[in-house]
């Protein structure tokens, strides 16, 4: 244990009396727990929903091989107690987003420290800490880079004050009809997995998209389309049902996806006037390529030949089909998991076969895993540094020295000021933040006749706006309840469209998340079509300071995958990271960075006025930024 009697007793005392919540027991969490115990903190609660995987062991040093499969929070606690058995550590193998962890729960802590890897949880904890008025230290790492910052209601910007760059996603026609890059094929293969074995999502269709605007007006394809629907064939049967008819016969699956569907696409000849057309594959004639790849690679880094892809496809389908047969009842679907061998083999094989068909460079299983699984490379040292910096911020908070708190960046090389660890002053809150401002407001563009209440709740409120138990009332003078967080109260509303409730252009909705103590007014704008086939777009009020990284993001469309954080009771289940559908922050009419309204000029905590967007951009460009 550290000799903490090295600073004036005030800090010592505050440390001893404090109660700390650590959210996450992974890369940052393990290092943080160690630092906290050694620094004299003796009342800690650590929560993590995940279990230990072998790939964690290169950095999550509280875990060893024998712990693989066990709860991270539980084992982290056990190992940390080895540094000082007299410390009180409570471990929760659970999701911090569960209703049990309400505002009262959060209020018991002196400081909350996030050690998370996804935006939904960060956003949620942010709101809970704002509601409970508890200081929050936020952090993140990616590769060699990391950041730490302090969040306090009324004193600093919150996690949601600044727009985050959106998750990369692709239009449906690119995935289904005209892929041009490996990632398009990988996304398609993941969708195929879900269509065959997982929870089928209508946004994840894998068959040719006849509604592709690029293909429109082509007499040939229209004729074929008419033919197809007249024959009343696959278009009416779900992919899964169709596969079950043949008991997942690999040759039949192969024939449809890599031959028949490809021929169909070829008939949509408008698509191929400027593109390399795809070449259908034949089950009886799979090319056997001789690879001239370098030796000395990891097995997974060798790119499979089409024949090897077919082999892997066949064997993985067999395993996955068997697995899905063994499930019964409600859970009759598999969840794709990058760490599951068969799931990974399936996606690698199918995406590479599709790449072959479309003359796109193939990728090794190693690379496919990174792209399909959104893997962020991670090492011990970055997490160690960041966890150390978190504790330093905590010291300042405990001493009441909020003015010394900083947003700290860990750079991969010295910045313009020769700093690899570079602090910058905290920004004050965005007065128009859609979470922490006095009257949060957003605008959502969508098609009121097509968007169902269920979709609105799942994709907009929960997915994009990170609410967890919303109550929604239509501001129509009658107090019409659209969505109730009470079970069963509004079930009959779910399948109806918004327009069924007379929601139209300009209608306002009053949304409340009782759990997060968060009220949000939403103005609906009715749009028949949005850019790139998006289902919705969220617009916050123009923010004064647009970070360099702010990018237009999308509403739900075929994206890489969806995630619902839930406690992991199965060893193989894992939360996908950073996949949240994001909010678009668009400037209003004034499209000028340098225009400033004096009333909303931000002031930094130290009292020096920022020069607005220009200075923030400069500050950001001095340091390596990762999006938390």
């Amino acid at each position, binding site marked *: *244990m550290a000799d903490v009697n090295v*600073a004036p007793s005030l800090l010592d005392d505050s440390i001893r009396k404090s109660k700390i919540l650590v959210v996450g027991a992974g890369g940052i969490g393990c290092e943080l727990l160690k*630092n906290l115990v050694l620094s004299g903190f003796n009342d800690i609660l650590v929560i993590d929903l995940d279990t230990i995987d072998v790939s964690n062991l290169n*950095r999550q040093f509280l875990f060893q091989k024998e712990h693989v499969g066990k709860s991270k929070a539980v084992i982290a606690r056990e190992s940390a107690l080895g540094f000082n058995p007299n410390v009180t550590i409570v471990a929760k193998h659970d999701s911090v987003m569960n209703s049990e962890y309400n505002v009262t729960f959060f209020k018991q802590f002196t400081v909350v420290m996030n050690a998370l890897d996804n935006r939904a949880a960060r956003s949620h904890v942010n709101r809970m800490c704002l509601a409970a008025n508890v200081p929050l230290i936020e952090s993140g790492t990616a590769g060699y880079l990391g950041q730490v910052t302090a969040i306090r209601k009324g004193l600093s910007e919150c996690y949601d004050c600044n727009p985050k760059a959106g998750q990369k996603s692709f239009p449906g026609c690119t995935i289904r009809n005209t892929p041009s890059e490996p990632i398009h094929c990988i996304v398609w293969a993941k969708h195929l997995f879900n269509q065959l074995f997982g929870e089928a999502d209508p946004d994840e269709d894998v068959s040719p998209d006849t509604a592709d605007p690029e293909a429109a007006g082509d007499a040939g394809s229209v004729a074929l389309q008419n033919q197809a629907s007249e024959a009343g064939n696959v278009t009416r049967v779900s992919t899964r049902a169709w596969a079950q008819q043949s008991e997942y016969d690999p040759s039949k699956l192969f024939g449809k996806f890599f031959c028949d569907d490809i021929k169909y696409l070829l008939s949509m000849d408008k698509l191929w006037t400027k593109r390399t057309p795809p070449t259908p594959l034949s089950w009886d004639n799979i090319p056997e390529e001789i690879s001239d790849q370098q030796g000395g690679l990891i097995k997974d880094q060798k790119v499979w030949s089409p024949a090897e892809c077919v082999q892997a496809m066949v064997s993985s389908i067999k395993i996955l089909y068997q697995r899905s047969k063994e499930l019964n009842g409600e859970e009759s679907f598999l969840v794709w998991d990058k760490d599951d061998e068969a799931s990974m083999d399936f996606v690698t094989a199918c995406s590479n076969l599709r790449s072959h068909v479309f003359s796109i460079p193939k990728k090794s299983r190693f690379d496919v895993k990174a792209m399909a699984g959104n893997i962020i490379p991670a*090492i011990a040292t970055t997490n160690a540094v960041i966890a150390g910096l978190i504790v330093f911020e905590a010291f300042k908070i405990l001493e009441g020295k909020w003015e010394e708190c*900083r947003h700290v960046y860990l750079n991969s090389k010295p910045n313009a000021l020769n700093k690899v660890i570079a602090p910058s002053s905290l920004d004050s809150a965005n007065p128009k933040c859609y979470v922490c401002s006095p009257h949060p407001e957003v605008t959502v563009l969508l098609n009121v006749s097509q968007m169902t209440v269920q979709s609105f709740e799942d994709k907009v409120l929960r997915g994009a706006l990170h609410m967890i138990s919303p109550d929604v009332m239509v501001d129509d003078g009658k107090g019409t309840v659209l969505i109730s967080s009470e079970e069963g109260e509004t079930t009959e509303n779910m399948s109806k469209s918004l327009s069924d409730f007379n929601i139209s252009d300009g209608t306002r909705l009053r949304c409340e998340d009782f759990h997060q103590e968060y009220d949000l007014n939403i103005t609906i704008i009715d749009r028949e079509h949005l850019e790139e086939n998006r289902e919705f777009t969220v617009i916050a009020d123009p923010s004064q300071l647009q970070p360099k990284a702010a990018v237009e993001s999308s509403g739900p469309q075929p994206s890489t995958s969806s995630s619902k954080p839930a406690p992991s009771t199965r060893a193989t289940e894992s939360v996908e990271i950073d996949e949240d559908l994001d909010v678009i922050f668009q400037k209003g009419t004034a499209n000028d960075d340098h225009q400033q309204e004096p009333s909303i000029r931000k002031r930094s905590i130290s009292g020096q006025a920022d020069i607005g967007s220009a200075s923030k951009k400069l500050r950001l460009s001095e340091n390596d930024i990762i999006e938390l």
Partner: protein
Amino acid sequence: MVAKEEVTISEAEAALYDRQIRLWGLEAQKRLRAARVLLIGLGGLGAEIAKNLTLSGIKSLTLLDHSIAVANSANFLIPLENVGKNVVEASLERVQRLNPMVDILTDTENVTAKNEDFFSGFDVVCATRLPVEESIRINAICRKHSIPFYSGDVFGFGGFFFVDLLEHEYSEEVNVPAATLKDGCTAKKNDPSETKTVKHTLNYIPLQAAFEADPSSQLNKRSWQRIKSHFITMKSLLMFRSQMKRDPEAANRQSDIAKLCEIRDHILHEMKLDNQMVDSGIFETVFGELSPAAAVVGGVLAQEIIKAVSHKDAPIRNHFFFNGATDFSGVVEAIGF
């Protein structure tokens, strides 16, 4: 010098090191796999370096320290029941458990008894808690055998380290403009920017030269201002250690602070900087070895060792300073050039 034997990575290693191979590449991992590192001094900083290097997958880590484990130490590798044993023996089990694939060796002898032959068997030498004269001696030996050398310390809320990589060749990835959009693609293109590998060479100086340097006249005004406090504090602490044969301790807090001020004034006088103010409040914060300070300095230092061994990415040259009580910054400066 990295061993020349051909090293392959097993499937088990590939699974364990997956997340880091994805960052620094298989080649770097292979070079780590061949590296034999000597770590002198296993206090709080040493424990962090030992943890980080063991996790990274080096070939062997030799822990050298003759001192006895005490309670309330910042070395988290020592179970309470091992207090009273030699520090490296007390830490061995926990270090080894971090990564069974790394050879962990212990040596309880006093480093001052080690001669040239001893050091020549390592690919990297990292010293902590040493009097600067001893560091200088070891650095000179390392230089003779072309061995990269580090020496670092944590005092209270902050710390620093020095690095000498002699003549160091490294490669780094540099971005080149991405390919143009393909025809007919309506989607927003995910242009992967291409990178190319560029090689550089950096020259370093011995510790003796760096320690005897006067950066106030060598650096430009802005750089000197930025590191002045760090540099003077470092020198004061190292000279305190040499003179008093111990580090500042809480039991002698007031007199040690006075002694540090005296040493600092002497240093400033020697540099003809008597009229330059250096905040004495900083000496309030140099007692003990705070865990978060060890974590920060140990993390940066260990990553530098990984860079040096892998010859990948630009290493720090030649000093790093961190202070968690004053400017909360980790600053790099080339001193003695």
